[in-house]
């Protein structure tokens, strides 16, 4: 075999391998969207129909079902509020950790990371008991609070990284101009890290939006349940309206898939708390 042929084979295998992985990743997604555009008999046709007259009936059904829209709205409110709270408390913390040396800094930092890896039931059971005592079950505020367990570590980690990249000289110059630390933080550093703010907002938003376990236990009520919970709620019935389930699933996953793609460069680094570059 000539070196050219060997190289051509190598190129082909490389491309073929990538295509296989792409198909494995995208096929379930295709199946979900395709299913949402089919009727029930079409969805279960064997052999499957690879071409069909798409119908939006399933989406009409899903949207007509007030529960779905309400759940999407609830998820939106909870996610936006939880992310906003996480940013408001997490970003200054990141600045403090990035720019100061003080006793306990290392311990605080590791403790934040530990919270990201925590087994959720350790927090869920006491949260449930406390919320029940305070009549806070089925209150979105409870979810907004409990999500800080993973949002704060994500935000703090990503933002420490961002503040590190702001040149210290810039802040020293501001210091000479008579600005105090808080003014420097707000007027000099914060505007320079807006891209990082967007990334940490999206990344932590994805995890808040996707959560099933906490929402399932803490906000089970019809009025307050979130998108992942509503997607599961159809399963109780005798016949499952699969096109409607797939339409709901598509609506639920569209924001997180778009958000994930927008920040794909930062996902590995964010989820491992900076253990990799």
């Amino acid at each position: 075999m000539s070196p050219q042929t060997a190289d051509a084979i190598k190129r082909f295998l490389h491309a073929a391998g990538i295509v296989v992985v792409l198909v494995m990743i995208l096929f379930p997604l295709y199946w979900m969207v395709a299913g949402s555009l089919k009727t029930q008999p079409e969805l279960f046709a064997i052999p499957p129909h690879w071409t069909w007259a798409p119908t939006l009936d399933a989406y009409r059904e899903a949207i007509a079902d007030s529960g779905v829209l309400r759940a999407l709205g609830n998820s939106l409110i909870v996610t936006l509020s939880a992310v906003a709270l996480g940013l408001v408390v997490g970003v200054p913390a990141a600045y403090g950790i990035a720019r100061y040396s003080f006793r306990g800094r290392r311990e605080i930092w590791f403790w934040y990371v530990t919270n990201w890896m925590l087994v959720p039931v350790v927090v869920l059971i006491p949260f449930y008991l406390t919320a029940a005592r305070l009549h806070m079950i089925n209150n979105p505020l409870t979810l907004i609070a409990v999500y800080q367990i993973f949002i704060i570590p994500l935000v703090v980690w990503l933002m420490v990284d961002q503040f590190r990249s702001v040149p210290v000289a810039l802040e020293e110059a501001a210091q000479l101009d008579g600005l105090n630390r808080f003014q420097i933080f707000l007027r000099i550093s914060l505007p320079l890290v807006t891209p990082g703010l967007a990334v940490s907002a999206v990344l932590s938003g994805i995890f808040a939006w996707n959560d099933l376990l906490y929402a399932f236990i803490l906000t089970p009520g019809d009025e307050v349940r979130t998108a992942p919970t509503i997607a599961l709620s159809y399963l109780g019935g005798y016949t499952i309206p699969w096109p409607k389930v797939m339409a709901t699933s598509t609506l639920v996953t569209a924001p997180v898939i778009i958000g994930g793609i927008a920040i794909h460069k930062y996902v590995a680094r964010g989820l491992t708390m900076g253990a990799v570059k």
Partner: protein
Amino acid sequence: MSDPDKLPLLPPARRSFLEKAAPWLFIAPSLLLLLAIGLYPMIYTVYNSLQNFVMGMGPPVFNGGTNYITAITSQNFQNSVLRTLVLLVITLPVELVLGMMIALALDSQHSPFLRRLLQICLVIPIAITPAVIGLLTQLMFNEQLGVINYLLGRIGISPVDWLGSPTSAFATVVCVQIWEWTPFVALVLSAALSTVPPEVDEAALLETERWWPRFSAIRLPFMLPGITAALVFQTAFTMKAFDMIYAIQKGGPGSATEVAIIHIERLAFRGFDIGVASAQSILMLVLSIVLARTYIRLFYREVDG
């Protein structure tokens, strides 16, 4: 883990009270919030784990460590922990090997467009709602009407009752778990691979043309921190797995896919036994900490030094 002590710092300025308090003022809001929602619940769980506490059966009563004995000797808990560990032991090596292959494919010079596309698409299984993955699994792995069995039929494999029998239901969870998390491992390993200095790689190429010695002797050592990170975080994600598995069939059929978190959730919120469920949560917490520390010891000694 990134070391906060290596960060560039602002030089100490005028030593006013405000200056000295500044770091704590920056950190205090998040610290107080995490103390309230992270530390306090954990202490509360430890406290509950020492009580005879069944919801609706009167006030909790201190009972020494009895709950821990009940927890450890519970056949159902043992099985659910074992299932979690089996899931971990099967999926982790597969995810590492597949993830490494994907990372190496991304590192090559060929097909730039496909590589770029793959880099973007890898984020999809990580970002997609796990509960929806569970629903899709129910649909696609259906015995008679699912597309998986149809495709297998095309290559001559007779239909598998994926969700019906205990063994195949567990196998389904394994497959879906690998689908969901291999991309994460691939992204982490790909990032680790990019830390190998190109000049070292090139020097090695002069030494030997063969791929394996170059990979194992040159690249792998550089990748160890990344591999450790992939192991530690992937183990944490597997230990706390709930959403996807619950959405497939709530731990069923029977208890075939009832992993530890599903078991504890059921005991606490269906069985109302807060005391024993709390003890089991603490045991799971200890187990995940022990596993994480073991990996770091084994693969990444410098961290401890």
